[in-house]
């Protein structure tokens, strides 16, 4: 700022004062967002004494941690894929599926509620429904004689967790993709019809190519959303299912890895994964905006 004081064109007092207006935000962002994150990132590349090292990152490649990352990535991938598919089907149904208009509003409102209904209460809801004495489990047993737990279903497993995560993934997909679907111009469909395209051809050759960046972008966002979620899984499984956020949670609580800097590396790995996913989202979103304008 002292450099600018020499510039004759600007009035002397105006410049620092204008920058002063950004000071609260900059201070807030630095103290409570950027510095804490930087501390973790830098710590991932330091030894306990503060010397630079790559050993922490190398230590991530031990079987138990790799397994945690792998199961986290698989769950995030499965919930993002299923969330995108089912959410897209529902969004398409309310946008141009010949469904009465009156249904659209409530579906979107409910999506707003459900996408925010994550965390501890969500796990309670599913335990009460599909737990060992949950409503659906009991009804299936009493009405149809099907014991889903005897068939190998378990809420505290990969598929169980996926099923629970979908409760906030599907609504998020509906909320994000509906504006993109609304941006699809009626004329495109009409033009395709006039040229003799079938419904399937229209979707395959016109609609999906236009929507593809949107779909992939939302997929990336949903992936990151699932990857960072801790509370739901923690309340559901305690620490029995070793997904990355839960390992990190246990590490922060009690240093289970016997090495604080390995915790930094673990957190750094999470930032890398969600960072890549979000970067993809931003990049793909920029590509769709020219269509939906």
């Amino acid at each position, binding site marked *: 700022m002292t450099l600018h004081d020499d510039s004759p064109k600007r009035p002397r007092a105006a410049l620092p004062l204008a920058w002063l*207006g*950004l000071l609260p*935000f900059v201070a*807030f*962002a630095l103290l*409570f*967002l*950027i510095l*804490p*994150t*930087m*501390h*973790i990132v830098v*710590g991932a590349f330091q030894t306990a004494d503060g010397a630079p090292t790559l050993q922490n990152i190398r230590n991530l490649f031990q079987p138990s941690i790799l397994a945690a990352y792998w199961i986290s990535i698989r769950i995030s991938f499965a919930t993002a894929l299923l969330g995108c598919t*089912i959410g897209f*089907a*529902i969004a*398409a*149904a*309310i946008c*141009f*599926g*010949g*469904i009465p208009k009156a249904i659209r509003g409530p579906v979107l*409102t409910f999506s*707003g509620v459900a996408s*925010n*209904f*994550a*965390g*501890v*209460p*969500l796990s309670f*809801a599913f*335990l*009460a*429904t599909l737990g060992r004495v*949950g*409503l*659906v489990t009991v009804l299936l047993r009493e009405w149809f004689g099907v014991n889903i737990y005897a068939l190998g279903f378990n809420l505290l497993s990969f598929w169980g967790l996926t099923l629970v995560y*979908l*409760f906030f993934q*599907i609504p998020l997909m509906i909320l994000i993709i509906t504006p993109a679907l609304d941006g699809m111009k009626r004329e495109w469909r009409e033009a395709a019809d006039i040229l003799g395209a079938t*419904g399937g051809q229209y979707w395959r050759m016109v609609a999906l190519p236009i929507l593809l960046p949107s779909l992939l972008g939302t997929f990336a966002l949903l992936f*990151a959303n699932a990857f960072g979620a*801790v*509370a739901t899984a923690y*309340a559901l499984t*305690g620490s029995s299912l070793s997904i990355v*956020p839960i390992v*990190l*949670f246990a590490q*922060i*609580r009690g240093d289970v890895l016997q090495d604080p800097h390995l*915790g930094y590396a673990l*957190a750094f790995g999470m*930032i890398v994964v*969600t*960072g890549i996913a*979000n970067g993809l989202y931003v990049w793909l979103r920029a590509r769709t905006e020219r269509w939906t304008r």
Partner: protein
Amino acid sequence: MKTRIWSWIALAIGFLYFALPLIGTIEFSLRKRRGEYSLDAYRWVFEDPRFRETFTYSVVMAICTILVGVLIVVPTAYWVRLRFPRLRPVVEFITLLPLVIPPIVIVFGYIRLYNTASLLPLTGSATGTNFLLMMGYATLSLPYMYRAVDTGLRAIDVRTLTEAAQSLGAGWPVIIGRVILPNVLVAVLSGAFLTFAIVIGEFVLAALLNRPAFGPYLQLIGANRAYEPAALAVIAFAITWFCMGLIQLVSRFSAQGRAKRS
């Protein structure tokens, strides 16, 4: 019509998937008394002093978070639009960072950066930790708050309003408090209700900073009781629903107001 059938099938599957856990939870929450439905689980919850303590704590934290968020976000969004339009992408990028960096990583950073041995030992005292938790919540809600306010600002002519106020002799506090804020109030409110919903159910930050908030209480009850967790889930869902309903109400109210004015 083939599309219509497929649409109804998609909706029906969605409806089943979302309705069953809700029905299951409500049914389960009523099952505490053997052989008949009762509200015993709810009675237990409301009579539990820890419920009241933790819930009050989270409500107070939510209100403080909203105040801090508004104080930081509204002037910043306004100032960036007025004086630093070129910085908008940068500020927007920073406000979106909490969606990229998982909350657990942010709070891990807090614990390491502000521990008792550090320059700013916030975690050393209850007040300091409360402050840290509040700032953490403000960080989590930053993306939603900033986007809401920025969208609200887009609808008004910031420059003209400012110049008009200035030529009438208003200072900065008056301009922001009495000219800009009322104009973006609807946007601020919808951001505020979302923040409220986020803070009430938040678990990770409060648990790792060891504060007696509602989220960790929920988890504790979930680990130790049978039917009460379901009752709590119903209550939590009602609160979320209530907040989202308020957002809808507020935005509908503003849409009508705008239509009348034009």
